[in-house]
């Protein structure tokens, strides 16, 4: 362990810097461990219904009468008033882009050529700013903007599995209006 004495406080910064290259070249010894951590997350009633409806090509939300609110993704309780939510309600598969990113990173932070268009869509029929994250498609990156009206593009029925990926992406909604 080396102490790097530098003027001022903290008076020194202990620690030994090693480069990634040294590790890759095995100049620095290390141990290797792959954890076998696997989970089967229970969906619970809210997510189970949400995914089931996605499989049918529909987006469903849940109402909280106390807060006069339509929640999507649906939940069995409302976190604002801490009461059980009340009713299922079908929503449109159109919405508005609340925010977005144009990503050149994959999940492991590797660089990719073709960017991923991703963002948050607030869903028509739900409360303002209520929506979920998804991809965008059928548009150029420079067309994508906050406030843009979009519509879900569904996978063919036989390919749907009951997953958020049953929606392929959201595409521009022509004329900007409700369908």
């Amino acid at each position: 362990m080396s102490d790097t004495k530098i003027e001022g406080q903290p008076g020194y910064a202990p620690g030994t810097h090693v480069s990634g290259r040294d590790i890759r070249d095995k100049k620095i010894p290390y141990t290797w461990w792959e954890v076998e951590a696997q989970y089967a997350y229970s969906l619970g009633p809210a997510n189970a219904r949400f995914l089931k409806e996605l499989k049918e090509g529909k987006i469903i939300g849940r109402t909280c009468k106390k807060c006069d609110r339509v929640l999507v993704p649906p939940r069995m309780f409302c976190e604002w008033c801490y009461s059980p939510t009340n009713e299922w309600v079908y929503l449109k598969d159109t919405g508005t882009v609340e925010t977005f990113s144009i990503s050149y990173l994959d999940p492991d932070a590797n660089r990719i050529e073709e960017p991923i268009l991703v963002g948050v869509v607030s869903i028509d029929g739900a409360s303002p700013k209520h929506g979920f994250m998804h991809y965008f498609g059928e548009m150029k990156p420079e067309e994508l903007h906050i406030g843009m009206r979009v519509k879900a593009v569904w996978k063919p029925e036989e390919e749907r599995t009951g997953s958020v990926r049953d929606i392929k992406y959201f595409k521009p909604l022509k004329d900007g209006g409700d369908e």
Partner: protein
Amino acid sequence: MTRKVCVIGVGNTDFNSMTPDVSWKEFMYEACKKAYVDAGINPREDVDSFITCAEDYWEGFSIFDEFVPDQIGAVLRPCCTVCGDGIQGLASAYMQIMTGLVDTVAVESHSKISDALSYGDVVLHAMDPIYEKPVAGQVERERFSGPSYPEKSPKPLVGKTDEKGRVHPYYIAGLEMQHYLRSTKTTEEQCASVVVKNKRNAYDNPMADYECSLIEDDVMQSEYLFKPVKELDISPLVDGAICFVLAEEGVAKNLGVEPIYLNGFGYSSETPWFSSRGMDAGYATMASKMAYKMAGIKDPKGAFDIIEVDDRFSYKELQHIEALGLAKPGEAAKMLENGELEKDGKLPTNISGGSLGIGNCLEATGLQRSLEIVTQLRGFAGKRQVKNPEVGLAQSWRGIPSGTGAAAIFSRYPEVKA
């Protein structure tokens, strides 16, 4: 310093080996909602701070703290995770209240371990990567997944090394039990009696999942998994959520709730190197000394009307009773034989059924132990009610391979009568 901290509400789900019908969110919501109703409060206004006791790998998340606030009522309010046993959560709440910054704190902990398919691997993952993990080797997943793998029938833990020479980390319990039996001249049969007692006690606990009518021979004839630890010596995993609401005593008075006081707590950690750690549950000794001091208890023997100790392995109950200073080394088994640990005995122990009878709910174990004490002190324990208890002790341990344990003392009075 005049503030006193008390329990004003408790809530819990049932304890079940599997809970595929609810996600962790609805599950936690149920326990917390019940606790708030019990206390007669609205968490959105009346709870000043929220604590969850959780560990990422039990849950299957990085930063589980993210997935907590909505279902416990903590949105846009102070909330944090304590990566420790439930009693460490109670301790944190106690300290928060004692500062005067907050008056009411909710503490939640749970196990949703049926969602985890590789329990043994996760336990192994808690070991030191340089010295300890390579010794145990990589664990075969399905073999150690506990009673929860939805598509396969439950598989028992198997202690013998498999064809690749890998061993389940519970072998540490085997080493420790061996040491305990030799150093205290306790027998395997006596440990088997703990299993019989606790699984029988669980019959009177409607929320328990592993009640069973056994005799010592049944336990003795179950398979050696980590000799001398046998299959029935091990508490099986369970799902369950528990929430406690703690408050300054003035809050309880205003609400008209009968308070159960938290008179003292303690927690302590031994070295993480189990190979250089004492094998006498020193963590429990240190934690209890701290708690006794805080509660003003000079001699713990005779101080408690009921205790709940960590019994995730059968011998742990006896070892913990001794480590807590409630019996001399080797005496706990004799107390058990004399019936002193029964409901009408001198020191009723794990009347709830303990982890052996209810199930091992990981970080929620401390709250599970505390829940029984509070229920008993309130006189709400139904068939298993101990006669008029006034002071109780709850003790827990963070499980293999940890050397951390905690203790909490509850009573019906602001001061424990020493």
